[in-house]
Structure formats: C-alpha cells, structure tokens
C-alpha cells in the first residue's frame, strides 16, 4: 500500500507587512533587495516584531482544518547556514517541548476520506537565490532578500493519502480553503509549495522536495511511486532519502547530500515572548471566518436535502459553491445544484476554465426556474447552459436563437406523435402488446423535437392514443 504525507508551505499573501517587520509582505516584481530593513536582513541589534494579523490568519487556517489551538504559542530558532537565511537560522515553531505551534491534531474530510493534519506552524520565508554563471567554476549565487520574512504557514499532514489523485483533490480543496478564508492567494507564483513523503508498504520513507508548481506534485508522486514499486519488484530496498523533483527531466533525483542528518539545534526564540492566545480572541476569529467546507456541506444536506455526494462535490469547490449560494432560492435549490454539479462542473474543471466562464448567478437561476416551470427540458437546458457559458447571453436570447423553446402544448405534440406513428408502425403494434416498450416511441418524439417536447405530456398522449 502506498502512503503519502504532505508538507505544504502557504504564504499569507493577504497581509500588508512581513512576519517580523514592517516591510511589504508582497515581494514579487520588486527591484532586488529593495524591500528589506535591518530586521529582515538580519543586521546586528535588530529584533523581530511579531505581526498580530499573521497570528490571526494562521489561527484561521488551523480552525478551518479542525486543529487544536493551544492557549500559548511559542517560536523557536531552526539553526542552519544557508545564504537565503539572513540570520542563518529560521524563526519557526516547534512542538518537541510541549505543543506551542498554532495548530495540531486536525482533520479534514475529502471525498469521504479523512486526512489528518499533524501540525500547523507559523514561520518566516527565506530569501530567494538566483544562480548565475554557466560552468560549475564560474557559478555564483545571487541573493535577494525581498522575500525574507514573508509570513508562511506550514501544514504537515499524516501519511494518509493512498494515491496521487487524493493528493490533487486535497490540494485543490486546500487552495480553495485558504482563498476562501481570505488568508492567501494560492495561485500566486510561489504562494503555495508542496513537499511530499512517500513509502510503499513497510518500506523506507522518501522525501520529495523542490516541486516547483502545484500541478507537478501529482506527476512527481506518480513518478516516485512507479520508481519505488519497480525497485520493490526487483527485490531492491528503497533508501530513506531526500529526492528533488527535476522539472526539466520530469523525474525525481537523489539529492546525494550529506546534510540528511541535519542537526538544527532548535532553541526557544527569546526575542518573541510566548504569545497568549485567549479563548476570547479565538471566538472573535471564529466570527470572522467564512463558513467551513464541512459546515457548508452539512447545510446543503440538511437544508436542501442534497444527496451526500452532490453536497460533497459542491461544498469542497469554493467557486461553484459560491455560485450555488448566489444562484439558488428556496424553490430551485436542488435544480441549481444539479445544473452545477452535473453539467457546469463538466464544462469547466480547471481554474483557467472557471475564469473563462461567462456565467452569472442569474443565468443559473433563470435556467433552473425554466426547467422547473416546464419551459425547458433538462436536455435543452444543458444546450442553453453551454451557450450561456460561452457567450454570456441571457437565457431568453439563447432559447430563441437556438430554438430550444419547450414544446408542451398537447396539439403540437400530438401532431408529431402522428408522424412517428406513420414511420414506426411496427413499434406501435409492439407497444400495444407490450406497454413497456413505449419508451422507444417517447425517444422518437424527443429526437424529432430535438429534446424540446415535454416528456410527461408526450407520455400521456402516447398512452391515450395507444389505449394502454
């Protein structure tokens, strides 16, 4: 069995300032080293000043992932030398001496599968390294500290994923979640970064780092699983190691570094006192939080009687559940949820496609009403939706331009039935003998009307004419 765990680094991009100083949290597209001060550049004598809002936002993420939040949180120094670390230590959180990180022991349900969250910690992002020079000899490292000190939340899961698809779904949900609660724009370059660890059966754990983009995570995991399985098949032991994702070659490569056994010499960060997170402030943060995915799902089931599966799918997609919440009313909720989950989600399943949709809540609402009022069949509804998504035209225009108007008056339907009777004499005779075959005739009528005939009316008339 494959076991996959994740470490997700998520920048709190919605903050104005860095985690420990008043420099800008948004570091992208700035001149090198123009967004630095003595604190984030690690000058002697500078002291970190913890950002209140960063603690609040990290608390929100912890709450949204069902974590326990301790009464007191503490910061530690993780000591190692690297040029992107201006102090040669990173201020982070650590749990070995009592739980002091902002969240622990959480869980989130994804498509019926429970993923446990081990720990959530608030920490600073390092600076950025740029490599210059072509040959190994001339290579230098250029450092830009604009990013140093950007507030980062690290989310560590238990190894609860069984396959890369679950990971993808989880990451999509997580991305939606952090966007939903207003702590991060996960689609900004570098805002959400994922490391994974994988083991097969009782085999050793392999860490996968350096996966540049969100989308490559699934690919990297797939590659690594195949690699490990083929080793196992050949009777070769999988080494416990760290492997880097090689973006160009689309494979994982052993990082052959002797740093495996890093001794980080964790040390309490005395410059930041223990922060008391009162129950009062947690309650206050809760009131600022948008509805959680779980709460939303439960509401869909309870209030609208949505089937669990539909509620699951809808609630875990921020874009579509928002659309649902804006489109529906008491009467058409179920129809709206059907339109979104069976048709619309099929048209647009990626972020890019979602952004291209020209659909508004009114489109959906009108469509559902028309179907419920028998002005449009579900079939025609799907065609209308497709057109609205592409053009953004209002429903009535789409119905007339595509001639999708519902045929529900008995006279018109009878005329068409007469035509069908002429063409399908054999089937008519059969239907008279065996009423179960009547659906064949319904289908014929539908085809002739391009799906516009009202199925119930059609059936009524057919039955009358056939006297069955």
């Amino acid at each position: 069995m494959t076991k996959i765990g994740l470490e997700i680094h998520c920048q709190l991009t919605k903050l104005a300032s860095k985690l420990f100083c008043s420099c800008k949290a948004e570091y992208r597209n700035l001149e090198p080293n123009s967004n630095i001060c003595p604190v984030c550049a690690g000058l002697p004598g500078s002291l970190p000043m913890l950002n209140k809002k960063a603690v609040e936002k990290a608390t929100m993420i912890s709450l949204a992932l069902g974590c326990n939040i301790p009464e007191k949180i503490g910061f530690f120094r993780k000591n190692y030398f690297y040029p992107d670390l201006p102090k040669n230590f990173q201020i982070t959180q650590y749990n070995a001496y009592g739980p002091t990180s902002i969240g622990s022991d959480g869980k989130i349900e994804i498509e019926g599968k429970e993923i446990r969250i081990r720990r959530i910690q608030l920490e600073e992002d390092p600076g950025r390294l740029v490599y210059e020079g072509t040959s190994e000899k001339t290579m230098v490292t250029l450092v830009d500290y604009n990013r140093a000190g950007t507030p980062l939340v690290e989310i560590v899961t238990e190894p609860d994923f069984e396959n890369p698809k679950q990971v993808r779904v989880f990451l999509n949900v997580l991305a939606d979640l952090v966007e939903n609660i207003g702590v991060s724009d996960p689609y900004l370059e570098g805002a959400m970064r994922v490391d994974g660890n994988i083991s097969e059966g009782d085999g050793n754990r392999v860490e996968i780092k350096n996966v540049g983009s969100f989308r490559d995570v699934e690919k990297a995991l797939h590659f690594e699983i195949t690699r490990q399985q083929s080793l196992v098949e050949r009777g070769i032991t999988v080494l416990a190691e760290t492997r880097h994702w090689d973006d160009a070659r689309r494979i994982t490569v052993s990082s052959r570094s002797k740093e495996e056994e890093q001794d980080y010499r964790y040390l309490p960060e005395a410059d930041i006192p223990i922060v008391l997170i009162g129950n009062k402030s947690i309650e206050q943060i809760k009131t600022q939080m948008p509805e959680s995915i779980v709460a939303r799902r439960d509401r869909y089931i309870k209030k609208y009687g949505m089937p669990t599966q539909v509620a699951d799918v809808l609630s875990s997609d921020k874009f579509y559940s928002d659309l649902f919440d804006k489109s529906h009313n008491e009467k058409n909720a179920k129809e709206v949820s059907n339109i979104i989950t069976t048709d619309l989600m099929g048209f647009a399943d990626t972020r890019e496609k979602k952004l291209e949709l020209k659909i508004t809540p009114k489109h959906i609402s009108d469509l559902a009403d028309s179907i419920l009022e028998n002005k449009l069949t579900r079939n025609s509804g799907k065609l209308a939706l497709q057109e609205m998504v592409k053009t953004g035209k209002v429903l009535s225009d789409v119905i007339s331009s595509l001639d999708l108007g519902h045929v529900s008056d008995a006279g018109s339907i009878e005329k068409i039935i007469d035509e069908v009777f002429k063409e399908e004499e054999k089937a008519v005779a059969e239907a008279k003998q065996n009423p179960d075959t009547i659906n064949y005739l319904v289908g014929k009528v539908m085809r002739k009307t391009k799906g516009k005939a009202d199925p119930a009316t059609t059936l009524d008339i057919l039955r009358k004419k056939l006297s069955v």
Partner: protein
Amino acid sequence: MVERKEIEHLGDLVKVELKEPEKYIKQVEQILNYFDSLDKVDFHSDDILRMEVASENLRDDIHEPYGDSLIEHLKKDQNNFIRAPKMV
C-alpha cells in the same frame, strides 16, 4: 571524553574552521565536565521561565517602508544583489 572528531563536527555545525582543534578539545571537555554538575540537581518543577505577551499587544499589520535604502549599507553587486559563493 571529547574527541577530535567531535570538536570538528561542532566546528562544522557552527561553521568555524578550527585552526588548532586540539586547543579546544581539553577546554571544552573541562567545561562540559563542569556542566555535568547539572545532573545532580533535584528539580521540583519542569517549568521553564519565559516571558509572555497577550496576542492583542503584538505589532499591527501595517506596511511602513524602511526609510533608508538599506542595501546601500550592505555588500552588493551592481544589480543590488548580495553575492554568495557557489553552493555545489
């Protein structure tokens, strides 16, 4: 006993090239032996003293650009990057 290998490992951890590791071995060992007296302490509490601050007293999230161009005070190249050696 502190050995040469151990001193060199510590030197590697704190990134100091030790010109005369031998010199440090005896002194570090002597001091650590003294620190061993901590083993004899009979503790009645596992608590650790740390200052506390209420979360509402933390810094407000306000962007204030640093008044001076800090990079001008640092070692930098013509493009305002800090140059580090190759990482290998």
